Protein backbone atom coordinates (compact mmCIF):
# COMPACT_ATOMS: atom_id res chain seq x y z
CA UNK A 1 0.00 0.00 0.00
CA UNK A 2 2.68 2.39 1.06
CA UNK A 3 4.77 1.40 -1.94
CA UNK A 4 1.86 2.22 -4.23
CA UNK A 5 1.53 5.65 -2.72
CA UNK A 6 5.14 6.42 -3.47
CA UNK A 7 4.79 5.07 -6.99
CA UNK A 8 1.72 7.19 -7.63
CA UNK A 9 3.51 10.28 -6.40
CA UNK A 10 6.42 9.39 -8.63
CA UNK A 11 4.15 9.08 -11.68
CA UNK A 12 2.90 12.62 -11.07
CA UNK A 13 6.47 13.84 -10.67
CA UNK A 14 7.59 12.12 -13.89
CA UNK A 15 4.77 13.76 -15.81
CA UNK A 16 5.71 17.16 -14.40
CA UNK A 17 9.39 16.64 -15.12
CA UNK A 18 8.60 15.76 -18.71
CA UNK A 19 6.06 18.50 -19.26
CA UNK A 20 8.49 21.36 -18.58
CA UNK A 21 10.94 20.53 -21.40
CA UNK A 22 8.06 19.48 -23.66
CA UNK A 23 6.37 22.85 -23.15
CA UNK A 24 9.65 24.60 -23.96
CA UNK A 25 9.88 22.58 -27.19
CA UNK A 26 6.27 23.18 -28.14
CA UNK A 27 6.55 26.94 -27.64
CA UNK A 28 9.68 27.24 -29.77
CA UNK A 29 8.53 24.80 -32.46
CA UNK A 30 5.36 26.83 -32.85
CA UNK A 31 7.49 29.92 -33.53
CA UNK A 32 9.77 28.05 -35.93
CA UNK A 33 6.86 26.56 -37.91
CA UNK A 34 4.59 29.59 -38.04
CA UNK A 35 6.76 32.61 -37.29
CA UNK A 36 7.97 35.42 -39.53
CA UNK A 37 11.66 35.40 -40.47
CA UNK A 38 13.66 38.59 -39.90
CA UNK A 39 17.34 39.50 -40.04
CA UNK A 40 18.88 41.22 -37.02
CA UNK A 41 22.21 42.97 -37.41
CA UNK A 42 24.64 41.83 -34.72
CA UNK A 43 27.98 42.29 -33.03
CA UNK A 44 28.80 39.03 -31.23
CA UNK A 45 31.21 37.83 -28.53
CA UNK A 46 31.42 34.31 -27.04
CA UNK A 47 31.18 33.32 -23.36
CA UNK A 48 30.39 29.97 -21.71
CA UNK A 49 27.40 28.64 -19.79
CA UNK A 50 28.34 25.96 -17.26
CA UNK A 51 25.32 23.83 -18.11
CA UNK A 52 24.72 24.52 -21.76
CA UNK A 53 28.23 24.91 -23.11
CA UNK A 54 29.78 27.55 -25.30
CA UNK A 55 27.73 30.09 -27.13
CA UNK A 56 28.09 33.24 -29.18
CA UNK A 57 26.63 36.19 -27.34
CA UNK A 58 24.76 38.38 -29.74
CA UNK A 59 24.67 42.11 -29.37
CA UNK A 60 22.22 43.73 -31.68
CA UNK A 61 23.17 46.75 -33.74
CA UNK A 62 22.52 50.22 -32.37
CA UNK A 63 19.31 50.95 -34.19
CA UNK A 64 17.74 47.91 -32.52
CA UNK A 65 19.01 48.69 -29.08
CA UNK A 66 18.68 52.35 -28.26
CA UNK A 67 15.34 53.97 -28.21
CA UNK A 68 14.50 57.60 -27.71
CA UNK A 69 11.91 57.96 -25.00
CA UNK A 70 10.62 60.28 -22.35
CA UNK A 71 8.47 57.60 -20.82
CA UNK A 72 9.09 56.52 -17.27
CA UNK A 73 10.67 53.15 -17.97
CA UNK A 74 12.69 51.29 -15.38
CA UNK A 75 15.57 48.85 -15.87
CA UNK A 76 14.39 45.28 -16.52
CA UNK A 77 10.85 46.39 -17.23
CA UNK A 78 9.19 44.29 -19.92
CA UNK A 79 8.36 46.14 -23.14
CA UNK A 80 7.03 45.22 -26.57
CA UNK A 81 9.33 46.22 -29.41
CA UNK A 82 7.44 46.76 -32.66
CA UNK A 83 9.54 46.17 -35.73
CA UNK A 84 9.38 46.94 -39.40
CA UNK A 85 11.19 45.05 -42.08
CA UNK A 86 13.09 46.69 -44.97
CA UNK A 87 13.33 45.33 -48.51
CA UNK A 88 16.27 43.07 -47.66
CA UNK A 89 14.40 41.56 -44.70
CA UNK A 90 16.37 43.41 -42.03
CA UNK A 91 14.51 44.34 -38.88
CA UNK A 92 14.32 47.98 -37.79
CA UNK A 93 12.90 49.31 -34.60
CA UNK A 94 9.60 51.05 -35.15
CA UNK A 95 8.23 51.80 -31.72
CA UNK A 96 8.51 50.59 -28.14
CA UNK A 97 5.36 50.12 -26.09
CA UNK A 98 4.57 49.11 -22.53
CA UNK A 99 1.37 47.41 -23.68
CA UNK A 100 0.33 45.44 -26.74
CA UNK A 101 -0.80 47.50 -29.72
CA UNK A 102 -3.93 46.38 -31.59
CA UNK A 103 -3.65 44.81 -35.06
CA UNK A 104 0.11 44.64 -35.12
CA UNK A 105 1.89 41.30 -35.14
CA UNK A 106 5.51 42.11 -35.87
CA UNK A 107 6.81 42.57 -32.35
CA UNK A 108 9.14 40.90 -29.86
CA UNK A 109 9.13 40.84 -26.07
CA UNK A 110 12.14 42.68 -24.73
CA UNK A 111 13.40 44.24 -21.52
CA UNK A 112 14.81 47.63 -20.65
CA UNK A 113 18.52 47.01 -20.17
CA UNK A 114 19.43 50.41 -18.78
CA UNK A 115 18.16 53.97 -18.88
CA UNK A 116 20.27 56.96 -19.93
CA UNK A 117 18.49 59.68 -18.01
CA UNK A 118 20.07 62.76 -19.54
CA UNK A 119 19.80 61.63 -23.15
CA UNK A 120 16.27 60.39 -22.46
CA UNK A 121 17.19 57.12 -24.12
CA UNK A 122 16.78 53.51 -23.10
CA UNK A 123 18.87 50.52 -24.09
CA UNK A 124 16.93 47.37 -24.88
CA UNK A 125 17.73 43.79 -24.09
CA UNK A 126 16.37 41.02 -26.28
CA UNK A 127 15.86 37.61 -24.65
CA UNK A 128 17.30 35.84 -27.72
CA UNK A 129 20.92 36.83 -27.38
CA UNK A 130 22.59 33.42 -27.25
CA UNK A 131 23.60 31.27 -30.17
CA UNK A 132 24.97 27.94 -28.96
CA UNK A 133 27.70 26.42 -31.07
CA UNK A 134 30.22 23.63 -30.95
CA UNK A 135 33.00 24.76 -28.66
CA UNK A 136 35.65 24.36 -31.39
CA UNK A 137 33.74 26.49 -33.87
CA UNK A 138 32.93 29.41 -31.62
CA UNK A 139 36.50 30.64 -31.48
CA UNK A 140 36.90 30.85 -35.24
CA UNK A 141 33.44 32.31 -35.58
CA UNK A 142 34.24 34.91 -33.01
CA UNK A 143 37.46 35.82 -34.82
CA UNK A 144 35.67 36.19 -38.12
CA UNK A 145 32.95 38.25 -36.56
CA UNK A 146 35.27 40.65 -34.80
CA UNK A 147 37.25 41.38 -37.95
CA UNK A 148 34.62 43.99 -38.62
CA UNK A 149 34.89 43.87 -42.39
CA UNK A 150 31.91 41.59 -42.69
CA UNK A 151 28.30 42.36 -42.07
CA UNK A 152 26.78 39.84 -39.70
CA UNK A 153 23.20 39.16 -38.86
CA UNK A 154 21.10 36.61 -37.04
CA UNK A 155 18.10 34.95 -38.64
CA UNK A 156 15.25 35.05 -36.17
CA UNK A 157 11.74 33.68 -36.39
CA UNK A 158 9.12 35.72 -34.58
CA UNK A 159 5.65 34.84 -33.34
CA UNK A 160 3.56 36.19 -30.46
CA UNK A 161 6.52 38.18 -29.26
CA UNK A 162 8.77 35.12 -28.93
CA UNK A 163 11.91 35.10 -31.07
CA UNK A 164 13.89 31.96 -31.88
CA UNK A 165 17.29 32.18 -33.55
CA UNK A 166 17.62 29.88 -36.54
CA UNK A 167 21.00 30.90 -37.85
CA UNK A 168 23.93 33.26 -37.74
CA UNK A 169 25.10 34.64 -41.12
CA UNK A 170 28.33 36.44 -41.89
CA UNK A 171 29.23 37.64 -45.37
Amino acid at each position, binding site marked *: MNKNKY*LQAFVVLVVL*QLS*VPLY*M*IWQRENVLQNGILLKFKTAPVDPVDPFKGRYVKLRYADELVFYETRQNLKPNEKVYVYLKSDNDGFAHLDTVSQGLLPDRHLYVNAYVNYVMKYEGKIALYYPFD*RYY*MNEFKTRTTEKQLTMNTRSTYALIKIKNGVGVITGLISN
Partner: protein
Amino acid sequence: MKINLQELVDKGVISEATALKIKNYYQTTPDRDSNRILLVFGVLGAVLLGLGIILILAHNWDNFSRSIKIFWAFFPLLSAQALGFYILWQKSQSKIWCETGAVLLFFAIATVISLIGQIYHIAGDTPKFLLTWLLLALSLVYIFRSYFVSLLYLVLLTAFVVSANHWNYSEPIRPWLYWGLLVVWLPYYVKLIKKYAATNFTAFHHWFVVASLLIAFGSYPSGGADWHLLAYVLLLGILLLTGYLSFFKQLPWYKNAYFLTGIIGLSGLLLFFSFDVFWLHNESLIWTESLSQIFFYIFIVLFVSWLALFLYLLHQKAIEVLDLTLYIAPSIIVIYFLSHWLHEANYLANLLILIWGVYFIVTGNKKNSLINMNFGMLLVSMLILFRFFDTDLSFILKGIIFIVLGLAFFGVNYLLVKKRKYE
Protein backbone atom coordinates in the same frame (compact mmCIF):
# COMPACT_ATOMS: atom_id res chain seq x y z
CA MET B 1 15.33 -9.72 22.49
CA LYS B 2 13.18 -6.86 21.30
CA ILE B 3 12.76 -3.96 23.70
CA ASN B 4 10.00 -1.42 23.53
CA LEU B 5 11.68 1.78 24.71
CA GLN B 6 8.43 3.72 25.00
CA GLU B 7 7.06 1.07 27.35
CA LEU B 8 10.13 1.29 29.58
CA VAL B 9 9.80 5.07 29.70
CA ASP B 10 6.09 4.84 30.52
CA LYS B 11 6.72 2.37 33.29
CA GLY B 12 9.44 4.58 34.71
CA VAL B 13 12.20 1.99 34.26
CA ILE B 14 14.38 4.42 32.34
CA SER B 15 14.17 8.18 31.83
CA GLU B 16 13.22 9.88 28.57
CA ALA B 17 16.82 11.03 28.12
CA THR B 18 18.16 7.49 28.53
CA ALA B 19 15.66 6.19 26.01
CA LEU B 20 16.84 8.80 23.52
CA LYS B 21 20.45 7.88 24.17
CA ILE B 22 19.74 4.21 23.58
CA LYS B 23 17.90 5.03 20.39
CA ASN B 24 20.75 7.21 19.15
CA TYR B 25 23.30 4.57 20.01
CA TYR B 26 21.59 1.97 17.87
CA GLN B 27 21.18 4.38 15.02
CA THR B 28 24.87 5.19 14.85
CA THR B 29 26.50 1.84 15.51
CA PRO B 30 28.36 0.61 12.44
CA ASP B 31 26.47 -2.63 11.84
CA ARG B 32 23.23 -0.70 11.37
CA ASP B 33 24.54 0.79 8.17
CA SER B 34 27.52 -1.37 7.45
CA ASN B 35 27.22 -0.45 3.80
CA ARG B 36 27.57 3.24 4.41
CA ILE B 37 30.77 3.37 2.36
CA LEU B 38 29.01 1.66 -0.50
CA LEU B 39 26.27 4.26 -0.19
CA VAL B 40 28.70 7.15 -0.38
CA PHE B 41 30.44 5.70 -3.43
CA GLY B 42 27.14 4.90 -5.10
CA VAL B 43 26.02 8.48 -4.74
CA LEU B 44 29.41 9.90 -5.71
CA GLY B 45 29.25 7.76 -8.82
CA ALA B 46 25.80 9.08 -9.60
CA VAL B 47 26.92 12.68 -9.14
CA LEU B 48 29.95 12.20 -11.40
CA LEU B 49 27.86 10.40 -14.00
CA GLY B 50 25.29 13.20 -13.96
CA LEU B 51 27.87 15.94 -14.27
CA GLY B 52 29.73 13.99 -16.97
CA ILE B 53 26.59 13.67 -19.06
CA ILE B 54 25.93 17.39 -18.74
CA LEU B 55 29.47 18.23 -19.80
CA ILE B 56 29.52 15.91 -22.80
CA LEU B 57 26.18 17.17 -24.02
CA ALA B 58 27.17 20.78 -23.36
CA HIS B 59 29.78 20.26 -26.06
CA ASN B 60 27.03 21.11 -28.60
CA TRP B 61 26.32 18.63 -31.31
CA ASP B 62 26.14 20.76 -34.41
CA ASN B 63 25.99 17.82 -36.74
CA PHE B 64 22.76 16.30 -35.50
CA SER B 65 19.29 17.28 -36.60
CA ARG B 66 17.04 18.96 -34.10
CA SER B 67 14.93 15.86 -33.45
CA ILE B 68 17.99 13.71 -32.74
CA LYS B 69 19.32 16.36 -30.38
CA ILE B 70 15.97 16.44 -28.58
CA PHE B 71 15.99 12.66 -28.29
CA TRP B 72 19.42 12.76 -26.63
CA ALA B 73 18.36 15.62 -24.41
CA PHE B 74 15.59 13.44 -23.00
CA PHE B 75 17.72 10.32 -22.76
CA PRO B 76 19.23 11.00 -19.28
CA LEU B 77 15.87 12.01 -17.80
CA LEU B 78 13.94 9.10 -19.29
CA SER B 79 16.52 6.54 -18.21
CA ALA B 80 16.73 8.03 -14.71
CA GLN B 81 12.94 7.96 -14.48
CA ALA B 82 12.85 4.33 -15.65
CA LEU B 83 15.46 3.50 -13.02
CA GLY B 84 13.33 5.40 -10.51
CA PHE B 85 10.32 3.23 -11.26
CA TYR B 86 12.42 0.10 -10.92
CA ILE B 87 13.79 1.26 -7.58
CA LEU B 88 10.39 2.15 -6.14
CA TRP B 89 8.98 -1.13 -7.42
CA GLN B 90 11.70 -3.55 -6.41
CA LYS B 91 14.34 -1.85 -4.29
CA SER B 92 12.42 0.63 -2.21
CA GLN B 93 13.95 -0.79 0.97
CA SER B 94 17.54 -0.32 -0.19
CA LYS B 95 19.09 2.96 0.92
CA ILE B 96 21.82 2.73 -1.71
CA TRP B 97 19.43 2.28 -4.61
CA CYS B 98 17.14 5.05 -3.42
CA GLU B 99 19.95 7.54 -2.88
CA THR B 100 21.68 6.77 -6.17
CA GLY B 101 18.50 6.84 -8.20
CA ALA B 102 17.34 10.10 -6.64
CA VAL B 103 20.68 11.83 -7.22
CA LEU B 104 20.74 10.72 -10.86
CA LEU B 105 17.21 12.05 -11.37
CA PHE B 106 18.15 15.29 -9.65
CA PHE B 107 20.84 15.97 -12.24
CA ALA B 108 18.80 14.60 -15.13
CA ILE B 109 16.20 17.34 -14.59
CA ALA B 110 18.80 20.06 -15.06
CA THR B 111 20.27 18.25 -18.05
CA VAL B 112 17.08 18.13 -20.07
CA ILE B 113 16.09 21.75 -19.37
CA SER B 114 19.58 23.01 -20.22
CA LEU B 115 19.79 21.02 -23.41
CA ILE B 116 16.39 22.08 -24.70
CA GLY B 117 17.48 25.64 -23.91
CA GLN B 118 20.65 25.05 -25.89
CA ILE B 119 18.89 23.45 -28.87
CA TYR B 120 16.50 26.39 -29.23
CA HIS B 121 19.07 29.06 -28.29
CA ILE B 122 16.96 30.18 -25.36
CA ALA B 123 18.62 32.96 -23.40
CA GLY B 124 19.63 32.09 -19.87
CA ASP B 125 17.54 33.33 -16.98
CA THR B 126 19.53 31.65 -14.20
CA PRO B 127 17.12 32.20 -11.27
CA LYS B 128 14.20 30.95 -13.35
CA PHE B 129 16.18 27.88 -14.37
CA LEU B 130 17.14 27.16 -10.76
CA LEU B 131 13.55 27.69 -9.61
CA THR B 132 12.21 25.21 -12.17
CA TRP B 133 14.89 22.73 -11.13
CA LEU B 134 14.03 23.17 -7.44
CA LEU B 135 10.31 22.66 -7.99
CA LEU B 136 10.87 19.52 -10.03
CA ALA B 137 13.41 18.11 -7.57
CA LEU B 138 11.67 18.77 -4.26
CA SER B 139 9.43 15.73 -4.24
CA LEU B 140 12.43 13.46 -4.91
CA VAL B 141 13.40 14.18 -1.32
CA TYR B 142 10.09 12.76 -0.12
CA ILE B 143 9.50 10.00 -2.65
CA PHE B 144 12.99 8.49 -2.41
CA ARG B 145 13.64 9.71 1.18
CA SER B 146 17.05 10.81 -0.04
CA TYR B 147 19.53 12.56 2.28
CA PHE B 148 21.78 13.56 -0.57
CA VAL B 149 19.07 15.11 -2.70
CA SER B 150 17.88 16.91 0.41
CA LEU B 151 21.35 18.43 0.87
CA LEU B 152 21.63 19.19 -2.84
CA TYR B 153 18.22 20.84 -2.65
CA LEU B 154 19.47 23.15 0.10
CA VAL B 155 22.56 24.05 -1.92
CA LEU B 156 20.44 24.73 -4.98
CA LEU B 157 17.96 26.75 -2.93
CA THR B 158 20.77 28.92 -1.62
CA ALA B 159 22.15 29.40 -5.13
CA PHE B 160 18.65 30.35 -6.20
CA VAL B 161 18.13 33.06 -3.59
CA VAL B 162 21.55 34.55 -4.28
CA SER B 163 21.01 34.69 -8.03
CA ALA B 164 17.39 35.86 -7.67
CA ASN B 165 18.61 38.71 -5.48
CA HIS B 166 21.30 39.53 -7.97
CA TRP B 167 18.76 39.82 -10.80
CA ASN B 168 15.92 41.13 -8.67
CA TYR B 169 14.92 44.23 -10.66
CA SER B 170 12.41 42.62 -12.94
CA GLU B 171 11.11 40.11 -10.37
CA PRO B 172 11.30 41.70 -6.92
CA ILE B 173 9.05 39.00 -5.43
CA ARG B 174 11.18 36.09 -6.62
CA PRO B 175 13.89 36.08 -3.90
CA TRP B 176 11.19 35.73 -1.24
CA LEU B 177 10.12 32.41 -2.72
CA TYR B 178 13.18 31.09 -0.89
CA TRP B 179 11.25 30.96 2.38
CA GLY B 180 8.32 29.13 0.83
CA LEU B 181 10.61 26.57 -0.75
CA LEU B 182 12.38 26.15 2.59
CA VAL B 183 9.08 25.61 4.42
CA VAL B 184 7.92 22.86 2.04
CA TRP B 185 11.24 21.12 2.65
CA LEU B 186 10.96 21.39 6.45
CA PRO B 187 8.78 18.30 7.08
CA TYR B 188 11.62 16.13 5.78
CA TYR B 189 14.08 17.88 8.09
CA VAL B 190 11.76 17.45 11.08
CA LYS B 191 11.42 13.77 10.25
CA LEU B 192 15.20 13.41 10.10
CA ILE B 193 15.55 15.10 13.48
CA LYS B 194 12.91 12.88 15.02
CA LYS B 195 13.97 9.57 13.53
CA TYR B 196 17.70 9.85 12.93
CA ALA B 197 18.74 12.31 15.58
CA ALA B 198 22.34 11.30 16.06
CA THR B 199 23.38 10.39 12.54
CA ASN B 200 26.03 12.34 10.68
CA PHE B 201 23.62 13.00 7.84
CA THR B 202 21.31 14.84 10.19
CA ALA B 203 24.26 16.81 11.53
CA PHE B 204 25.20 17.75 7.95
CA HIS B 205 21.65 18.97 7.52
CA HIS B 206 21.99 21.26 10.55
CA TRP B 207 25.11 22.83 9.10
CA PHE B 208 23.62 23.19 5.65
CA VAL B 209 20.45 24.80 7.01
CA VAL B 210 22.40 27.31 9.07
CA ALA B 211 24.74 28.15 6.19
CA SER B 212 21.82 28.52 3.81
CA LEU B 213 19.94 30.83 6.18
CA LEU B 214 22.95 33.07 6.73
CA ILE B 215 23.84 33.30 3.04
CA ALA B 216 20.22 33.83 2.00
CA PHE B 217 19.61 36.50 4.61
CA GLY B 218 22.76 38.35 3.63
CA SER B 219 22.01 38.23 -0.08
CA TYR B 220 18.95 40.48 0.05
CA PRO B 221 19.64 44.03 -1.07
CA SER B 222 19.82 46.33 1.94
CA GLY B 223 17.29 49.05 1.38
CA GLY B 224 18.19 50.40 4.77
CA ALA B 225 21.44 48.82 5.86
CA ASP B 226 20.78 49.46 9.55
CA TRP B 227 17.68 47.34 9.86
CA HIS B 228 19.17 44.64 7.69
CA LEU B 229 22.17 44.45 10.00
CA LEU B 230 20.06 44.46 13.16
CA ALA B 231 17.79 41.77 11.73
CA TYR B 232 20.92 39.75 10.99
CA VAL B 233 21.98 40.09 14.63
CA LEU B 234 18.59 38.82 15.72
CA LEU B 235 18.79 35.91 13.26
CA LEU B 236 22.10 34.90 14.85
CA GLY B 237 20.47 35.32 18.26
CA ILE B 238 17.64 33.01 17.23
CA LEU B 239 20.13 30.44 15.92
CA LEU B 240 21.92 30.62 19.26
CA LEU B 241 18.70 30.05 21.20
CA THR B 242 17.72 27.21 18.87
CA GLY B 243 20.97 25.55 19.90
CA TYR B 244 19.61 25.44 23.45
CA LEU B 245 16.55 23.36 22.50
CA SER B 246 16.82 20.06 24.33
CA PHE B 247 17.24 18.15 21.09
CA PHE B 248 20.25 20.16 19.94
CA LYS B 249 21.74 20.55 23.38
CA GLN B 250 22.29 16.82 23.83
CA LEU B 251 24.27 16.61 20.57
CA PRO B 252 28.08 16.65 20.65
CA TRP B 253 29.22 20.27 20.37
CA TYR B 254 30.45 20.05 16.77
CA LYS B 255 27.04 18.82 15.64
CA ASN B 256 25.18 21.71 17.25
CA ALA B 257 25.49 23.99 14.23
CA TYR B 258 22.90 26.40 15.61
CA PHE B 259 24.67 27.17 18.86
CA LEU B 260 28.15 27.33 17.34
CA THR B 261 27.14 29.54 14.45
CA GLY B 262 25.19 31.82 16.76
CA ILE B 263 27.99 32.28 19.25
CA ILE B 264 30.78 32.66 16.68
CA GLY B 265 28.72 34.95 14.46
CA LEU B 266 27.66 37.21 17.31
CA SER B 267 31.15 37.40 18.80
CA GLY B 268 32.50 38.25 15.36
CA LEU B 269 29.94 41.01 14.92
CA LEU B 270 30.68 42.38 18.36
CA LEU B 271 34.41 42.48 17.60
CA PHE B 272 33.58 44.24 14.36
CA PHE B 273 31.52 46.81 16.27
CA SER B 274 34.39 47.44 18.66
CA PHE B 275 36.22 49.41 15.96
CA ASP B 276 35.47 53.11 16.02
CA VAL B 277 35.72 53.11 12.21
CA PHE B 278 32.45 51.23 12.01
CA TRP B 279 30.57 53.83 14.05
CA LEU B 280 32.16 56.77 12.27
CA HIS B 281 30.63 55.70 8.98
CA ASN B 282 27.41 54.62 10.55
CA GLU B 283 24.60 57.10 10.05
CA SER B 284 22.18 56.98 12.91
CA LEU B 285 18.77 55.44 12.36
CA ILE B 286 16.17 57.67 10.81
CA TRP B 287 12.92 56.42 12.26
CA THR B 288 10.60 58.07 9.81
CA GLU B 289 12.34 56.33 6.92
CA SER B 290 12.26 52.98 8.70
CA LEU B 291 8.56 52.47 8.07
CA SER B 292 9.16 52.11 4.34
CA GLN B 293 11.92 49.55 4.75
CA ILE B 294 11.07 45.88 4.59
CA PHE B 295 13.87 44.95 6.98
CA PHE B 296 12.32 47.12 9.68
CA TYR B 297 9.31 44.79 9.67
CA ILE B 298 11.49 41.71 9.42
CA PHE B 299 13.38 43.02 12.43
CA ILE B 300 10.15 43.26 14.41
CA VAL B 301 9.04 39.77 13.39
CA LEU B 302 12.44 38.34 14.32
CA PHE B 303 12.43 40.20 17.61
CA VAL B 304 9.06 38.74 18.53
CA SER B 305 10.27 35.28 17.51
CA TRP B 306 13.42 35.70 19.57
CA LEU B 307 11.38 36.71 22.60
CA ALA B 308 8.92 33.85 22.13
CA LEU B 309 11.75 31.34 21.82
CA PHE B 310 13.44 32.81 24.88
CA LEU B 311 10.29 32.53 26.98
CA TYR B 312 9.62 29.03 25.71
CA LEU B 313 13.12 27.89 26.66
CA LEU B 314 12.76 29.54 30.04
CA HIS B 315 9.46 27.80 30.56
CA GLN B 316 11.05 24.48 29.58
CA LYS B 317 13.90 25.21 32.00
CA ALA B 318 16.33 24.72 29.11
CA ILE B 319 18.11 28.00 29.88
CA GLU B 320 19.12 29.85 33.00
CA VAL B 321 18.26 33.51 33.34
CA LEU B 322 21.78 34.27 34.51
CA ASP B 323 23.45 32.68 31.48
CA LEU B 324 24.97 35.79 29.90
CA THR B 325 25.49 34.01 26.57
CA LEU B 326 21.79 34.45 25.86
CA TYR B 327 21.97 38.22 25.90
CA ILE B 328 24.65 38.91 23.31
CA ALA B 329 22.19 39.59 20.48
CA PRO B 330 19.89 41.91 22.41
CA SER B 331 22.78 43.86 23.88
CA ILE B 332 24.29 44.44 20.43
CA ILE B 333 20.93 45.88 19.42
CA VAL B 334 20.78 48.04 22.52
CA ILE B 335 24.20 49.57 21.91
CA TYR B 336 23.21 50.13 18.30
CA PHE B 337 20.18 52.12 19.44
CA LEU B 338 22.26 53.92 22.06
CA SER B 339 24.70 55.01 19.37
CA HIS B 340 21.93 57.30 18.23
CA TRP B 341 22.65 59.53 21.23
CA LEU B 342 26.01 58.28 22.29
CA HIS B 343 29.04 58.85 20.11
CA GLU B 344 31.28 56.40 21.89
CA ALA B 345 29.24 53.28 21.17
CA ASN B 346 32.42 51.37 20.35
CA TYR B 347 33.49 51.68 23.98
CA LEU B 348 30.34 49.82 24.96
CA ALA B 349 31.12 47.08 22.41
CA ASN B 350 34.61 46.77 23.88
CA LEU B 351 33.17 46.51 27.36
CA LEU B 352 30.70 43.83 26.29
CA ILE B 353 33.43 41.71 24.71
CA LEU B 354 35.46 41.99 27.90
CA ILE B 355 32.46 40.96 30.00
CA TRP B 356 31.72 37.93 27.84
CA GLY B 357 35.34 36.94 27.58
CA VAL B 358 35.68 36.91 31.35
CA TYR B 359 32.30 35.23 31.71
CA PHE B 360 33.32 32.36 29.43
CA ILE B 361 36.61 31.93 31.25
CA VAL B 362 34.88 31.85 34.65
CA THR B 363 32.08 29.49 33.64
CA GLY B 364 34.54 27.35 31.70
CA ASN B 365 36.58 27.00 34.83
CA LYS B 366 33.50 26.17 36.86
CA LYS B 367 32.18 23.65 34.36
CA ASN B 368 35.65 22.28 33.79
CA SER B 369 35.27 22.97 30.09
CA LEU B 370 38.41 23.67 28.07
CA ILE B 371 36.42 24.79 25.05
CA ASN B 372 34.43 27.38 26.97
CA MET B 373 37.51 28.73 28.68
CA ASN B 374 39.62 28.95 25.57
CA PHE B 375 36.79 30.67 23.75
CA GLY B 376 36.69 33.28 26.50
CA MET B 377 40.45 33.67 26.32
CA LEU B 378 40.20 34.02 22.56
CA LEU B 379 37.63 36.80 22.89
CA VAL B 380 39.73 38.73 25.36
CA SER B 381 42.89 38.24 23.31
CA MET B 382 41.17 39.35 20.11
CA LEU B 383 39.95 42.43 21.92
CA ILE B 384 43.43 43.28 23.13
CA LEU B 385 44.99 42.57 19.74
CA PHE B 386 42.49 44.65 17.85
CA ARG B 387 42.81 47.62 20.17
CA PHE B 388 46.50 47.34 19.68
CA PHE B 389 46.32 48.04 15.98
CA ASP B 390 44.04 50.98 16.68
CA THR B 391 46.58 52.66 18.90
CA ASP B 392 50.17 53.72 18.46
CA LEU B 393 52.06 51.62 20.94
CA SER B 394 55.76 50.93 20.79
CA PHE B 395 56.91 47.61 19.39
CA ILE B 396 58.35 46.60 22.74
CA LEU B 397 55.01 47.08 24.44
CA LYS B 398 53.22 45.21 21.66
CA GLY B 399 55.71 42.38 21.99
CA ILE B 400 55.22 42.17 25.73
CA ILE B 401 51.45 42.01 25.34
CA PHE B 402 51.77 39.16 22.84
CA ILE B 403 54.02 37.25 25.23
CA VAL B 404 51.66 37.81 28.16
CA LEU B 405 48.70 36.57 26.10
CA GLY B 406 50.60 33.49 25.01
CA LEU B 407 51.64 32.69 28.57
CA ALA B 408 48.09 33.20 29.78
CA PHE B 409 46.81 30.63 27.27
CA PHE B 410 49.43 28.10 28.37
CA GLY B 411 48.90 28.79 32.04
CA VAL B 412 45.14 28.58 32.08
CA ASN B 413 45.02 25.38 30.02
CA TYR B 414 47.74 23.84 32.16
CA LEU B 415 45.90 24.65 35.36
CA LEU B 416 42.63 23.29 34.11
CA VAL B 417 44.14 20.05 32.87
CA LYS B 418 45.88 19.67 36.22
CA LYS B 419 42.63 20.36 38.05
CA ARG B 420 40.91 17.68 35.96
CA LYS B 421 43.54 15.13 36.93
CA TYR B 422 42.95 15.76 40.61
CA GLU B 423 39.22 15.26 40.34
